[in-house]
């Protein structure tokens, strides 16, 4: 069963062709890593999946919702499709705990007691229970990102999208966040798609690697074969540059 299906998807920003002929199928439970140089369309692709960016042509089906149809209710789609952003985007006017509890309360109408218990459990899972009553501005970037992950998980998503979750972090913060992501993605029934520049991490968590360049999917392969012998010259070049630095 597939969770995400792209069929000849095209995305334009004015005259710029950002996604070109995207064909991609991701099955339920897969952990897929999306890599490629800056400006290659990775973020755009991920953002089309929860409708933060709209596509202009082709067919896109996510969790049985047809995103190419004008009648799609994106709010309902997003209940099951979480997203973790590069810059966290925690609600600046809410405490850490409220950041996690708000959506389950007003979107899912979850009872307050259950909501609180589950939120605290998630905070504990990301190692930040003692920060429950802090404001986002009072905790570090790495901690904010862990809270953001907990916030997404509170909705019990079937699909979780990560858009460069560690790119804005100080080097010593990155590992804590990666550990959390690793734990989260190992839950078997959740599908994840991760845009990252962390190759070591990609090797560790991915089942499958997609390489993009200039708006196109250049390679789509199992992790082992991708890292050991990439099929295209473009991917080989990319990997050699990344690994040697």
């Amino acid at each position, binding site marked *: 069963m597939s969770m995400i299906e792209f069929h000849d998807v095209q995305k334009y920003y004015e005259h710029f062709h950002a996604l070109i002929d995207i064909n991609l199928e991701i099955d339920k439970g897969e952990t897929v890593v999306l890599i490629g140089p800056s400006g290659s369309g990775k973020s755009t692709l991920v953002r089309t999946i929860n409708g933060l960016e709209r596509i202009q042509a082709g067919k896109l089906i996510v969790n049985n919702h047809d995103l190419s149809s004008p009648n799609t209710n994106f709010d309902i789609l997003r209940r099951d499709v979480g*997203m973790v952003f590069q810059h966290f985007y925690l609600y600046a006017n809410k405490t850490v705990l409220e950041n996690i509890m708000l959506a389950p309360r007003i979107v899912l109408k979850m009872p307050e007691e259950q909501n609180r218990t589950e939120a605290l459990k998630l905070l504990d899972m990301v190692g930040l229970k003692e920060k429950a009553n802090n404001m986002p501005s009072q905790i570090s970037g790495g901690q904010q990102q862990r809270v953001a992950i907990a916030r997404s998980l509170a909705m019990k998503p079937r699909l979780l999208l990560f858009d460069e979750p560690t790119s804005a972090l100080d080097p010593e913060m990155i590992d804590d966040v990666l550990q959390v992501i690793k734990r989260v993605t190992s839950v078997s029934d959740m599908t994840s798609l991760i845009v990252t520049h962390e190759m070591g991490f990609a090797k560790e968590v991915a089942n499958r690697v997609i390489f993009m360049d200039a708006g196109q999917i250049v390679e789509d392969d199992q992790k082992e074969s991708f890292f050991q012998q990439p099929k295209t010259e473009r991917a080989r070049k990319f990997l050699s540059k990344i690994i040697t630095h």
Partner: protein
Amino acid sequence: MINIITHYGHQLLIGLGWTVLSSVLALFFSLIIGSFFAIMEVVPNKTARIIGRAYVEILRNIPLLVITMFFYLVIPLYFVKINGFTAGTIGLTLYTSAFIAETIRSGIQSVDIGQMEGARSVGMTYWQAMRNIILPQAFKIVIPPLGNQFINLVKNSSVLAFVAGFDLMYQANSIASITFDTINSYFVVGIMYLIVTMPLSYYMRYLEKRVA
């Protein structure tokens, strides 16, 4: 000056009362109307945005006195008869609401776009995100410029004097024309405006500190 206060104190207090009443009413309604049009200006719906934009541009670019005269002289001709106080307060409300809409709109737009994306990504609707995340943050940003608008509003209520609204400015004109003591008449009234605006100014500062 003492002379003016002792002889015309009662008249001045009446003026103060009408000025305060007009200001409070205009402040209340312009805040509601202004917030409404501010939101109209930022919603995804294009028609709503055009209407919001048009309202703001028209009302903030016509002099307050012209708007007030319109309600005082033109409306009674075709619709209902309204007195000077009402006409002036309506004019003041509409005029100020355009500036308040602009202030609040810029506040909303200065909230990081990521706040909206973060909220939408967990399934909140546009309005849920607006109410819980965007507007509370925008309100904080907007307090200082909103304070300016409120102070302007109190001072602009002197437009009532032109339409027999019995406010402070009206009483100043009246006392000056009776006593020919123009200097002291306007001096006293100036101080009375200060008595209203200074506490307002300090309250806005206090509010700014408290929510920051």
